[in-house]
């Protein structure tokens, strides 16, 4: 298992690593005070206004394909080199935002998510009272 880098700790703070990597770091933080201190130092730099390439890249999602492009990926209409990169972004980079979009598109496509209407009703009813007054 490789050592955890400062840049990985930054991504951890952004809740942006694949789920298994997030769990690995959480586990390590519980048992390694030095790593915990390193995380605190990363956070202090961030609070002081220091900007990292990774944080900016993630926040602006600079390499994430659009939802429309993911729909094209599912349809198999992308050129092979682009499709290979999309797979890489999903599987090797492990982008959870894109994974979430793809899962949602697949669920919509298969219509397997029959409970969606009920969920949406619940979200609507619990929040509609907070809408700005017209």
């Amino acid at each position, binding site marked *: 298992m*490789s*050592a955890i*880098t*400062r*840049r*990985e700790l*930054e991504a951890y*703070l*952004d*809740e942006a690593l694949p*789920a298994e990597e997030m769990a690995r770091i*959480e586990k390590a933080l*519980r048992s390694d005070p030095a790593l*915990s*201190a390193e*995380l*605190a130092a990363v*956070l*202090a*730099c961030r609070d*002081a*206004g*220091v900007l990292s*390439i*990774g944080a*900016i*890249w993630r*926040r*602006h999602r*600079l*390499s994430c394909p659009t*939802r429309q492009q993911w729909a094209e990926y599912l349809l198999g209409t992308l050129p092979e*080199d*682009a499709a290979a*990169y999309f797979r*890489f972004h999903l599987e*090797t*980079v*492990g982008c*959870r*935002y894109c*994974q*979430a*979009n793809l*899962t*949602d598109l697949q*669920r919509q496509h298969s219509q397997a998510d029959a409970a*969606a209407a009920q*969920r*949406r009703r619940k*979200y*609507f009813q*619990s*929040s*509609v009272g*907070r*809408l*700005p*007054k*017209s």
Partner: protein
Amino acid sequence: MAPLSTDQLLIQRIRAGQADAWEEFIARFEGRLLAFVESRTGNRASAEDVVQETFLGFLTSLPHYDDRQRLESFLFSIAAHKLTDYLRRQGRRPAVPLAPWPESQSGADVPGKARAPSSIARSGERRQWQEAALAHALAEIIAGWKNRGQWHKLACAELLFVRGMTNKEVARRLNISEQAVASQKFECLARLRAAVRQQDLPQELFPELYETP
């Protein structure tokens, strides 16, 4: 003036208090938010609760939402905060201890020549502009790689900066030499340093660009 996007029109209607617009908004985004949160909670019921809090959080932060920001990214960032809170309450995510400014810690690994916070000029708007300028420079580099079909360069930079892997690990994943990784990293950092100079941005905000290899 540029025409409003579908998202901007929807936000305009929500700001006007239109319930049907809010219903449309929920239908458009809840599926992807649920998938994002569920990948971490591993539990549907908890994930639904976090998504519910995300929508409430969105309405609370609506007065501060800048329409130029990508709506989906804004929502995902709220969801990530709500998810972090949930995981902390569950005891899964350890609390981060407070640290003094790293320069005062002996042996702390402070990247580059970072200055104390008081000396970094950073009003909210100025900081946003500085971040946007670097994001723009990065976006141009990425677009160039994509347009030229240099997917390997994009893959290398993504593993280094987005995933935070070491040169060695990136070399192993991409089946290339560590020297090739270092060279691509150097090229990317050099182009970003040029952008910082060109835009007259303060170097101390981006210490990573001036790290010694």
